[in-house]
């Protein structure tokens, strides 16, 4: 790279000497500080002035900002260039974070330090613009220095990218999770005690087995585990059934089965539960109908394990289907043909050849179902009844009257243990055990059909289930249009009016509906989070696919980890980690955006990895040898070729941000309420009408977004063809003459 580090050093100075050092109470985007006492008011003063007021511990930060100046005229290959930058950046970053964590609102954070240095009279708040700029500057100085020392082929862009991703993941994934671990040991008095953890951990409330002998329910840990096993089993079996029907039968509508796979993406997680209440709840349509018919009393069986299981199976079967259809198609037809030419029957071929080849894929679907069920918050919240599970208990431990942070932390740790074990199993055990036989070679064989018994079993299970799913979604779409579902089924727009009414007042538009506020917040925050998520995910994918560096496996693991962390755990951990300095973020819109970024990042990473693996690496290398640096290469070669993957990542992170509820419910505030948590509130109040109307609006919005984007991608292809057509017309004669010359 020919660019020097000076712009970055300048950014550090701007952060240190000009911008307000601490976080502003009015929020990140409020600019009142400019006219309200800046630069000498201690709330707004930059660090340089804070030093002379009462925060003398900021003084050492001057050293890393001054030290790099002496290599002003040194060349990059001078060893002093590299070491100066590494020392400055490393020291600056370490000191900045160190003082942030040790000196907080109440002075010293650790009593040993207080004993050593005496009590502090002043205190400090969370980091603001200034600290952010300066920290960023130190990070880049450090990575520039590391590159100059010859790391990663001397590529500043790559070292800086790795530095940035590592810093972000450390701050927004590892710090919060670490904070949970620590919080589990803090007792009511705020002291660390092992007993806090053990008391909370080994309690009957979590591990109790009473449900086996008495009518008292079991512990929440066991409940969750039992539910997850049930859901994983049912979704895997149904998913396999659907996958077999879609690939191995001549079922007429099998193509439309694939539409199923889009459903879980656009469905907020509690919507299925809501629809089930409308159909099978105590006053649900089907319940009432059956009760009248058989003259029995309507039951409450739906609220509890059966209801959650049913809702989760409906919600997650499409995911299992998505996983398994790839697996079932991945079994090479020629293997099945080989088996049949060797004289095996269809059933024998399926049992002895196809099924064993699919086994790792089936296990994978099971583990994904397990993780999804464990992490699910919406359905148990809506349908839980007396059946408590970990994800909801965590919520009530924080939000309810008890506000027991260490209990929430312990529950979160247990939930994390379950999902992480499943995640580890998936990666370690299945990682090198994939039998999918897709080679680069075209395999022209035909998949073996299924024997009649298996075929009919699959059809008899999947068709009714697909029908049931359609009924559920029909309920969601139409439920908002009736006055009171089940009791007064006359058509009404009242719920939409209440939620999304628009009025005119003195010639200007007024958003009268109660839902508009949270709706626009949701759209805005999701729209801000989507490009950031996609950028972070694709940058990480680029580093993983294209660069070799030490610790890459750990790097990859760290970036994929947040996939296995349930939303409720993320929510709790963000509250614990970002409620106090040095990162004070709770109650802001920023924490929501950050939460979405790191929760949905694995999706972008996976998409990016898949797309980038298909780009020949020599394209990048050609660009490098032609004199372009990594950044230019990324901008001019990789990104244009990745456009479909970028669009997919954008849409997916946008949609996931809208449907997310488990983490969000902890992080919303009065100023920034999100649609999903608003709907949950409606459900808790029994206002099913508006809730379902709002849900269907969200589904329609997301569906529109997806279809719109697909249309745009499609048009892009068309445009390319358009662009080619006239040119080839123009060039055809010359090509012809050229070939004729050759022949002559």
């Amino acid at each position: 790279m020919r660019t020097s580090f000076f712009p970055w050093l300048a950014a550090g100075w701007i952060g240190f000497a000009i911008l307000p050092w601490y976080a502003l109470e009015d929020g990140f985007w409020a600019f009142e500080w400019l006219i309200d006492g800046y630069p000498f008011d201690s709330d707004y003063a930059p660090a340089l002035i804070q030093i002379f007021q009462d925060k003398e511990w900021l003084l050492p930060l001057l050293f890393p900002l001054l030290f790099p100046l002496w290599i002003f005229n040194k060349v990059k290959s001078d060893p002093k260039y590299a070491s100066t930058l590494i020392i400055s950046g490393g020291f600056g970053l370490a000191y900045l974070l160190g003082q942030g964590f040790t000196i907080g609102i109440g002075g010293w954070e650790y009593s040993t330090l207080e004993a050593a240095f005496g009590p502090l009279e002043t205190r400090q708040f969370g980091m603001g613009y200034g600290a952010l700029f300066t920290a960023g500057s130190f990070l880049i100085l450090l990575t520039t220095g590391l590159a100059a020392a010859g790391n990663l082929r001397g590529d500043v862009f790559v070292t800086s990218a790795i530095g940035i991703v590592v810093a972000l993941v450390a701050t927004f994934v590892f710090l919060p999770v670490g904070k949970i671990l620590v919080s589990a040991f803090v007792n009511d008095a705020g002291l660390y005690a092992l007993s806090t953890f053990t008391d909370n951990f080994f309690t009957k409330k979590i591990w109790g087995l009473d449900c086996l002998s008495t009518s008292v329910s079991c512990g929440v840990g066991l409940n969750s585990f039992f539910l997850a096993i049930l859901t994983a089993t049912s979704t895997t079996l149904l998913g396999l059934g659907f996958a077999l029907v879609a690939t191995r039968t001549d079922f007429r509508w099998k193509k439309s089965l694939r539409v199923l796979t889009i459903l879980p993406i656009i469905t907020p997680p509690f919507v299925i539960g809501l629809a089930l209440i409308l159909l099978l709840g105590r006053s649900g349509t089907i319940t009432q109908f059956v009760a009248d018919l058989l003259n029995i009393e309507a039951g409450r069986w739906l609220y509890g394990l059966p209801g959650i299981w049913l809702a989760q199976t409906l919600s997650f079967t499409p995911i299992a289907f998505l996983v398994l259809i790839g697996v079932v198609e991945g079994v090479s037809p020629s293997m099945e043909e080989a088996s049949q030419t060797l004289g095996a029957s269809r059933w024998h071929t399926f049992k002895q050849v196809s099924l064993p080849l699919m086994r790792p894929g089936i296990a994978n679907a099971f583990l994904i179902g397990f993780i999804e069920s464990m992490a699910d918050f919406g359905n148990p919240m809506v349908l839980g009844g007396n059946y408590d599970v970990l994800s909801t208990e965590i919520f009530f431990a924080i939000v309810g009257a008890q506000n027991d942070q260490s209990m929430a932390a312990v529950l979160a740790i247990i939930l994390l243990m379950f999902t992480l074990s499943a995640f580890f199993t998936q990666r370690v055990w299945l990682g090198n055990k994939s039998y999918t036989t897709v080679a680069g070679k075209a395999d022209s064989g035909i998949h073996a059909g299924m024997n009649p018994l298996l075929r009919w079993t699959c059809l008899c299970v999947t068709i009714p289930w697909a029908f049931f799913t359609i009924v559920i979604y029909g309920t969601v779409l139409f439920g908002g249009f009736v006055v009171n579902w089940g009791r007064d089924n006359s058509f009404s727009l009242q719920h939409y009016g209440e939620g999304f009414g628009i009025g005119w007042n003195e010639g200007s538009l007024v958003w009268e509906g109660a839902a508009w506020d949270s709706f626009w917040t949701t759209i805005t925050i999701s729209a801000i989070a989507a490009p950031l998520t996609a950028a972070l995910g694709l940058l990480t994918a680029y580093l993983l696919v294209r660069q070799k560096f030490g610790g890459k496996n750990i790097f990859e693991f760290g970036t994929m980890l947040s996939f296995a962390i349930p939303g409720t755990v993320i929510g709790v951990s963000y509250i614990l980690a970002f409620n106090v300095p040095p990162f004070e973020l709770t109650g802001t819109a920023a924490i929501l955006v950050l939460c979405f970024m790191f929760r949905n990042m694995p999706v972008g990473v996976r998409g990016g990895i898949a797309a980038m693996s298909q780009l020949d690496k020599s394209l990048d290398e050609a660009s490098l040898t032609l004199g372009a640096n990594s950044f230019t290469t990324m901008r001019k070669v990789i990104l244009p070729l990745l456009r479909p993957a970028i669009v997919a990542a954008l849409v997916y992170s946008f949609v996931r941000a809208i449907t997310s509820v488990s983490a969000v419910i902890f992080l919303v505030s009065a100023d920034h309420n999100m649609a999903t948590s608003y709907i949950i509130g409606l459900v808790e109040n029994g206002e099913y009408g508006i809730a379902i109307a709002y849900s269907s609006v969200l589904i329609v919005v997301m569906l529109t977004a997806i279809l719109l984007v697909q249309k745009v991608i499609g048009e892009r292809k068309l445009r390319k063809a358009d662009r080619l057509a006239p040119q080839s017309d123009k060039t055809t004669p010359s090509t012809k003459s050229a070939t004729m010359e050759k022949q002559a």
Partner: protein
Amino acid sequence: MSLHLKAGSVTFENVTKKYGAVTAIDDVSFSIAPGHLVTLLGPSGCGKTTTLRMIAGLEHASSGRILIGGKDVTNLPATDRDVSMVFQSYALFPHMTVGENVAYGLTVGGLKKAEAAERAEEGLALVGLAGYASRLPSELSGGQQQRVAVARALVLEPEVLLLDEPLSNLDAKLRRKVREEIRDLQQKLGLTAVYVTHDQEEALAVSDRIIVMNRSIIAQEGTPRELYEAPSSAFIADFIGDANLITGEVISANHEKAKVRIDSIEYELPSRGLRIGSAQIAVRPDSILLEPAQGSSGPGSSVSGSSESGSAGAKDQIGIRGNVTHSTYLGNQMHYSVDSPLGELFVVDYRIDNAIKAGSDISITFATKGMALIAP
């Protein structure tokens, strides 16, 4: 053509490249003179591509020094090195036109668009593709794409041009044509070029010098003729053109000539520093001469020795007895597998009219032109 090339030299000083515990290049040193085309030749996995990529800066040496045009570039990234590379897959950017591809290096280097396009057009003309600038790479044939890749590398006027198996994606006939074009262009422009291939015929055809690599080290370096006629090892003898390795005995030697006895026949060969004692001799398949056996004694028993060497196909010479196990007709030549007391021999014979049938007993003699003593 307005290319202002400044052909540079390339020097490796004790360069080692390790990937973890695996050593890809082991203490390699060589030097390439400006204006030469040097081929890195070797079987797959020998380290030739790694060597090329280290010249490009796509891999960095674990130890040692790399100099280009006399300047130390060991720690310089690919972006900052004055070399350009033609890739095996061509690596043309599929979303850019041919013209944009060729102009790419110029525009990222800061040249104005119009000027870059003009230079790109000149570059395309140089490889015979004038007027193709507005096409997309996908609209060109394989050979044309290959020439675009060369043009794209040349317009940057690099000190060194690197070519990584540039012909491997072309069919056999086109391969010969393109390799001649590349050689012509290189000589016309006086380029320093480093060329990687695993095809020894290609290497012999295009190179000023060849560096043969095997198992992470340089096995031998020399002109094509030196390598073919005086292989330094059994590996080289077998890799550069086929060779039968047979054991003989040096019975007398001075610094020029050596008298070698194979079975009971004596030949005079360049001594290549060998002393009296057992020795390995590489014999080219077309230098083994087969004649129908005259006597009826069993294979291996030579009837009489002869000190007269190099008498190609002399009727009066009685050779080693052998037996043809396979006889294959290939249009313009016969391939034989021969069972003999020297081991199994592979023989090429252009006298297709008197083909010998499998199962025939034959007598074997050698033509000294295709024989070389190999240092132990």
